[in-house]
């Protein structure tokens, strides 16, 4: 007869080195671990609560400008470097890790309307109210040298915006018309115009780099093709679009920040219907910038807040505000997709975390696993009322809060009126227009 007995083979439980993880034998029989759903639900609830507890997005405020910050630019090669232009014509270069200003340039007289960096990161361009386009070296002048631009182009009209090509030595300015310049020449190699109103912003497509988008004060967004030197299409909206931003991962998608408190994401091949209307702001949206992953974008608004929208959602997932932050004029998402910068009226540039409750710094593998698990749980149970309520809860300044209420009432009234009109008129005589189409006035070929 064979006698069974307890056998303890050290190979089964002794680690090779003390750095190895302890082997924990585990029986995954579901009957031994009951109540999966309730337990996970509680975990999800806790994770959601903790997320709100740890949501401290504000990192730093960079002060030094002596007027409102009008424009921001990222350094293409260096994550820590940021450029900003103010309303008094001053351009400052900041170091984000040290959180200080490393260089100050009095670039223009009057506003610095636009600023952009060259794709290689060696120089940057500014346009100002003094009808000039200036190119500056990224590095400061040596000792005893004077602060001077590399090149200065004197134009005939005021330039309101500038953007640099993503690969070549070409940049585009806008004002009365969209001009495309070679860096080496003092005359534009091509100017494109469609309509007579002033153009407020121009942006190169980062993927298909020959494409440009611009928005003008006559409420339209115009797309240009640089290679064929012709405008492509124009879409007229209800109200003026302040700026647009292209999706860096999807070549044909761009988002427009509009005066009517909304943002519109368009597929440029079908301009008659926006892909998504993003609404949450309670005042004009002044700037928009995409996350480099192309999944989200951040918008700056006149209502003293910035919001983060997922590309495919019409409501924002996050709103940032502080007591001291005034009208936010410009916003940028850093190239590592972790931080957001915004420049506002009250002369400060603020640095935020893109994920409010994210832990900064290096995570251990267990921390990472816990983070991923919590994220998954939150996602899984996001529709449950208690969890949804906690996850959605944000504190808002009174002004924004009351405006939201007010606008809700207004919207409801408008909707009711429309419903009534449809109800009391001949069937079919009053067309039902979807929310997406409502704001598009026309598409001009």
């Amino acid at each position: 007869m064979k006698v069974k007995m307890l056998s303890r083979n050290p190979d089964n439980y002794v680690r090779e080195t003390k750095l190895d993880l302890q082997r924990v034998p585990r029986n995954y029989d579901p009957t031994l671990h009951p109540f999966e759903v309730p337990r996970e639900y509680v975990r999800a609830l806790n994770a959601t609560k903790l997320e709100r507890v740890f949501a401290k997005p504000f990192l730093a405020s960079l002060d030094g400008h002596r007027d409102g910050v009008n424009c921001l630019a990222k350094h293409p090669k260096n994550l820590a470097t940021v450029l900003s232009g103010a309303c008094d014509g001053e351009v400052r270069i900041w170091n984000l890790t040290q959180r200080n200003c490393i260089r100050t340039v009095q670039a223009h007289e009057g506003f610095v309307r636009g600023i952009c960096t060259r794709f290689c990161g060696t120089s940057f361009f500014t346009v100002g109210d003094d009808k000039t386009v200036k190119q500056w070296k990224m590095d400061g002048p040596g000792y005893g040298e004077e602060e001077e631009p590399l090149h200065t182009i004197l134009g005939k009209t005021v330039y309101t915006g500038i953007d640099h090509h993503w690969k070549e030595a070409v940049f585009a300015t806008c004002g009365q018309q969209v001009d495309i310049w070679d860096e080496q020449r003092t005359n534009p190699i091509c100017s494109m115009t469609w309509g007579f109103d002033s153009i407020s912003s121009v942006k190169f497509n980062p993927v298909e780099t020959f494409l440009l988008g611009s928005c003008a004060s006559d409420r339209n967004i115009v797309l240009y093709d640089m290679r064929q030197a012709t405008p492509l299409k124009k879409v007229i909206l209800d109200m003026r679009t302040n700026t647009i931003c292209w999706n860096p991962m999807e070549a044909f998608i761009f988002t427009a920040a509009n005066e009517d408190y909304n943002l519109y994401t368009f597929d440029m091949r079908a301009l008659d219907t926006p892909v998504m209307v993003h609404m949450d702001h309670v005042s004009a949206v002044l700037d928009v910038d995409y996350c480099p992953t192309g999944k989200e974008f951040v918008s700056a608004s006149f209502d003293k807040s910035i919001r983060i929208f997922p590309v495919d959602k019409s409501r924002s997932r996050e709103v940032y505000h502080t007591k001291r932050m005034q009208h936010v004029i410009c916003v940028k998402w850093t190239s590592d997709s972790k931080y957001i910068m915004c420049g506002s009226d009250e002369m400060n540039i603020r640095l935020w975390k893109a994920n409010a409750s994210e832990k900064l710094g290096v995570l251990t593998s267990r921390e990472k696993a816990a983070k991923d698990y919590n994220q998954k749980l939150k996602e899984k149970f996001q529709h449950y009322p208690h969890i949804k309520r906690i996850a959605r809860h944000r504190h808002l300044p009174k002004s924004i809060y009351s405006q939201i209420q007010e606008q809700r009432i207004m919207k409801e009234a408008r909707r009711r009126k429309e419903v009534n009109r449809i109800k009391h008129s001949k069937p079919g005589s009053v067309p039902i227009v979807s929310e997406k189409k409502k704001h598009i006035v026309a598409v001009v070929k």
Partner: protein
Amino acid sequence: MNVNRVAESLLALSQQEELVDLPKNCPLSENEDEGDSDGERKHQKLLEAISSLDGKNRWKLAERSEASLKVSEFNVSSEGSGEKLVLADLLEPVKTSSSLATVKRQLNRVKSKKVVELPLNKEKIEQIHREVAFGKTSRVLSKWDPIVLKNQQAEQLAFPLGKEQPAIAPIEHALSGWKARTPLEQEIFNLLHKNKRPVTDPLLTPMEKASLRAMSLEEAKMHRAELQRARALQSYYEAKARREKKIKSKKYHKVVKKGKARKASKELEQLQKVNPTVALEELEKFENARMMERMSLKHQNSGKWAKSKAIMAKYDLEARQAMQEQLAKNKELTQKLQVASEIEEEKGCTEEVEELLVPHVVNEVQMNVDGPNPWMLRNCTSDIREAATQEDPEQLPEPATHEVSESEGEERPVAEEEILLRDFEERRSLRKRSELNQDAEPAGIQERKDSSSQEVLSELRALSQKLKENHQSRKQKASSEGTVPQVQREEPAPEEEAPLLLQRPERVQTLEELEELGKEDCFQNKELPRPVLEGQQSERTPNNRPDAPKEKKEKEQLIDLQNLLTTQSPSVRSLAVPTTIEELEEDEERDQRQMIKEAFAGDDVIRNFLKEKREAVEASKPKDVDLTLPGWGEWGGVGLKPSTKKRRQFLKAPEGPPRKDKNLPNVIISEKRNIHAAAHQVQVLPYPFTHHRQFERTIQTPVGSTWNTQRAFQKLTTPKVVTKPGHIIKPIKAEDVGHQSSSRSDLSVIQWNPKRITTRHNKELKKNSVG
């Protein structure tokens, strides 16, 4: 010259003609504005023109009264005629004169040439340009569609997208630019070089290289595999041998040895056939062994053990047998391997030898065992038997009788056996029962049970039968009552069993009472003291069972809400109405009721409803939930169950709130929806799901590592977007996703002047304008 002039004028004319075709061209229609007033003048002009066509007056210029846009030196105009000038008309006079052949040719050429279309206006052209360009751009952009879709559906996106090649220089490069400078470094380098340790790739010493060359990988592998196999086999054999060695059973070893011997002999036989010389050698070996055996005193019963056994052999059968076995072995071993006849001869000798060696007592028995004298053997066994019987005749009477019975008659052994067995059983059961009611039977009776009186036995048997019957009947009753909705109390047991059941009357009664109370709803507060009273009653008169049903009926009549439905509500009689009419009305009512009853004779709606309600109530009652966790706080595993204490502790059915339709007999209010739970439940099916079951399934699959293996857990919790901290994420590039990016730079195309339209572009334009 003249001719040329004429041609020129005609060309101009033809142009004019075309211009006339265009309705929009305003400057031409200027002349027509003059109206009919100067019709005469026109006529005059025409006449003059005609007259001037021939001969000398050719050069006379037409008189111009006002400035005309088209001034023709030929004075030809279509003014006033209202007709267009056709080239053929003009050519007619030319036909006659041969001197104008060149002109004619030129004119013909003009005729054959197609007319250039008028360019479109600027806006239109620009629009067409834009449309074409947009079409092109959209086509270029739509190549991104699959990539965008893929990225949207991807399980995980890791940014930055492009694989960054880590710039690791090979070690040679690093070393080539580096020289040993300090003395320590030099020393180390010297050492390294002395050992011929390579500093560059591949990092192998000459020795290692040589060894590598010596044996190829394949060979080495094969070699190693063989070695492994051999080692494994060896270990198996060792293990087997060890196991066999450990076996203590002598019999086993004996068997093994015998087997071996048999095998050896067989082999020998075979060898004899195949190879006689070798067989002879083998035989010699056997012979040697035999000789050794014969020389030695082994198995000769001369050892210490054998002597002791010899002493014991007189009395102990086993010892005797053992000695004999020993001798038999000796015999076997000393046997010569020879022909059968020889063996027989030998036998006698050995026997003699044995006789010499073995003591007398042993010899006797040995003869018995060997079997030459069967009589002796028989005698011996019978002796033993007799002795046994003498020793304990009282102890084993039954086996003896059994044997007797068997010997007596083999015809009906089974039946008799059965009878006997039954007898035994009965006796045993009797014993048990008597033990149960010890007070009834004194202990003395048990002792004298063997000679038990038939009377007691029969009595007890009867009793047991009755008990059984009663039990069965009660069971039947219970089952029948289960089907009947209104649970009736048990009918009183027959008179005979009453004394038997005396032992547990009070407890049962009270329990039943409690049950009843539970059934009869708790709002009967007055009834509460009742059970105590009844208990007292029952104590006083334990035989009052027949009264119980009555009581119950009374209670029912008092309170039963369920009956409210079925029983007639007592009609309230008003005094004002005369009695006769009243009777009439009552009659009518009764009639109607009768009719309804007849109409719905088949389906008992009320009863069904009541049943339904009862079922609903039962279903909504909170069920016991077994929350026992096996293995917590104690050992768990197959065949082990959690302790009863724990089971009791964890079995719990929380008392739910009272039903809303408790006091509404003819209403069922469903209480399936739990308000407290609803606060935690999803009300609307979330967007991507199409069916609630789909959603439930996703919720029910756990994600955590408590329920999943580490690998599965990692897979389940992979984040959708992964970014590296501190890495710049660049916009997606065509090269990243395997597309051919346009080789031409965006800049190179710009230089091309958009104002000049190439033929290709023109074609496209036309197509577009047509379409």
